[in-house]
């Protein structure tokens, strides 16, 4: 795990690959992106590479990791760069992380690299810090499924040195890079995010307390939290789902996403709304959130009834929009849910706005 390109993730991964090879572990390189970095390329020496497969798309030839070839080769360990990579259309699987899951399912250990900005649930925070919407993301549960997460740290100062010396990118790219991800304040913030997230990943893996008698847990920690997010056609639903997912992960809570419609399915919604709601529910399922479509004329009542039946303790809603005319509908909905769900906590989630620098 790193916080930017150039901190040395691939280098470190190859260093570990070399160390494993010297211990006579059967290791291959499944995919490697040299980016023209000399030190990194030198670290490849003597390592076996499984050739990439070629995929035709729109008249061009693209190269992707050849998962089938790696499966046939059956190494003990496979090193694969760029966990968050999206495969070119026409590949067997859409995402590299899906290929990696296949390798792991067949018993191959995998070493891979990613940056913090590719973690799905941090997408809004990363947008706030960088002003960039990262499109290539990995669902949190995939990263949580890793046996180990190691942070590759480098101070932003040192990273900027590398950048200026042309170690990371060529000259033209440097100019562009300096304007967004590679501003010092941005790097510092991303680095902090990566450090804190690594702590969370570690805690996730430490199950037992080793410091002696288990500390007295507070009532709240023993209590089972359950979180519900209301999915609508509103584009902020994605943010809402990410936030609900993150809170559930940190609290060890179950998480649901529901949409409400009078007929109990979405068939009579206008085309664009139906697509949006379906996309949001699908997004929630990809984040391993259980989804439902509830039947009801009265959205607030349907949501609260469902919540009560399922012992939900927290309902997550998007903050009503505040542009020009306040849409009375969404404010009323929020009010009604708050007054109906008297016994639950209601969390009104706001968009994180990019910091102006």
């Amino acid at each position: 795990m790193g916080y930017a390109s150039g901190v040395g993730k691939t280098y470190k991964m190859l260093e570990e690959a070399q160390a494993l090879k010297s211990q006579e572990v059967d290791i291959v390189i499944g995919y490697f992106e040299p980016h023209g970095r000399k030190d990194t390329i030198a670290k490849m020496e003597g390592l076996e590479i499984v050739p990439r497969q070629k995929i035709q798309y729109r008249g061009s030839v693209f190269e992707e990791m050849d998962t089938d070839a790696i499966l046939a080769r059956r190494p003990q360990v496979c090193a694969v760069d760029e966990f968050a990579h999206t495969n070119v259309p026409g590949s067997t699987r859409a995402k590299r992380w899906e290929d990696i899951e296949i390798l792991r399912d067949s018993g191959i250990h995998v070493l891979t690299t990613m940056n913090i900005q590719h973690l799905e649930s941090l997408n809004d925070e990363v947008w706030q810090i960088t002003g960039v919407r990262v499109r290539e993301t990995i669902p949190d549960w995939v990263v949580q499924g890793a046996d180990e997460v190691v942070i590759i740290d480098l101070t932003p100062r040192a990273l900027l040195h590398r950048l200026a010396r042309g170690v990371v990118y060529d000259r033209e790219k440097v100019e562009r890079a300096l304007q967004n991800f590679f501003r010092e304040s941005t790097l510092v913030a991303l680095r902090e995010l990566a450090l804190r997230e690594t702590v969370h990943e570690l805690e996730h893996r430490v199950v037992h307390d080793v410091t002696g008698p288990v500390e007295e847990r507070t009532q709240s920690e023993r209590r089972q939290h359950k979180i519900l997010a209301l999915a609508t056609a509103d584009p902020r639903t994605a943010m809402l789902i990410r936030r609900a997912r993150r809170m559930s992960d940190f609290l060890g809570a179950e998480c649901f996403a529901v949409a409400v419609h009078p007929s109990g399915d979405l068939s009579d919604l206008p085309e664009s709304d139906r697509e949006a709601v379906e996309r949001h529910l699908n997004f929630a399922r990809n984040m391993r959130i259980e989804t439902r479509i509830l039947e009801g004329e009265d959205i607030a009542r349907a949501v609260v009834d469902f919540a009560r039946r399922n012992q939900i303790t927290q309902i997550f809603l998007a903050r009503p929009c505040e542009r020009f005319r306040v849409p009375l509908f969404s404010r009323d909905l929020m009010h009604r849910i708050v007054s109906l769900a008297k016994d639950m906590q209601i969390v009104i989630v706001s968009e994180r706005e990019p910091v102006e620098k």
Partner: protein
Amino acid sequence: MTRDIRRRTPDELLREVQAEEAGAGKGHLKIFLGYASGVGKSFRMLDEARRRRERGQDVVVGAVQPKVPPEVVSVLSKLEVIPLGNYGEGTAIDVEAIIRRHPAVCFIDGLAYDNPPGLRNPTRWQDVQDLVKAGIKVIGSINIQYIDELREQVEAITGKRVAQTVPISFIKSADEIEIVDAPPEQPLERSPEEQVDAERREQRLSKLRELALLLAADVVEYQLSDYLERRGIKQHFGTQERILVCITPRANVGEMIEIACTVAERFHAELIVAYVKQANLSPADEAALEEKLEMAQAVGAGIQILEGEDPVDTILEFAKSRGITQLFIGHTQRSGAWSNLWGAPVDKLIRRSRGMDVRVFPQ
């Protein structure tokens, strides 16, 4: 929002970097932080020394650990070392010799050593301060267990107490701090003679890793706020969660504080409990408020008594100035400034709490 940060061109950046790398200007302190011995801290640091030397910088090593693994020996053979001085009862870095030699960069492997009596400073980290003051860039290394303020926490994890430590203020004064992370397996392989149960050891090491990562995150956070402040940027990045619990004398504060504590603990968040002063509280309300503030204090929350005409404005202004990401409030109370909360004030609060999440509690 101010826009006074000039974007640097690659050429400007390169000049800046070269000036800095040449050690021009004031001394500079960089610390490599590890969580246990054997994570490869010495190697990482001395490998940086080698690379700097290959780039033509004037580099010396001012202190080497008493026992070093073979890969470190081979890096050291390519570097100039100013050996530790022998001073009667023990050794210490030879401050005079290093200052006389005046390299651009001096590497100190191991910062937590007490000096033998009779020297200019009782400890090595104070010697390092002198080198930095003399205009030398110092790059040093330390493990988390040698930080004075963390000693008890580390002792609770490892059962061992170290004698020689460095104050956390020294670590925070560093211009740069870099963490050397590695999964616990690596250090395990280095000490096969230890016959402790592997799983327990792994968990202990995980806790130490956590401590080290959190310390690094805090130092980074501190540097970030300092950076933003110096540039007059008021907006915060939401990298650290910060929770503000707004209480009133009659609020059901118990539940709010309970969940706030859990969330704060899980997110390693800052927790603040705030109360907006109200005139003419009844003695009963005074007593209730006092009890609630004590409850907040008992769980280690920061307490803020705010004053202002409008409670919503007062809270939001405070929340924005402190970079709050989660605001906890109660609703439907019968009296006090938060009366008819649902209706105008909570609504107003939600409408204007841009950039933060609002958690409304049942009362």
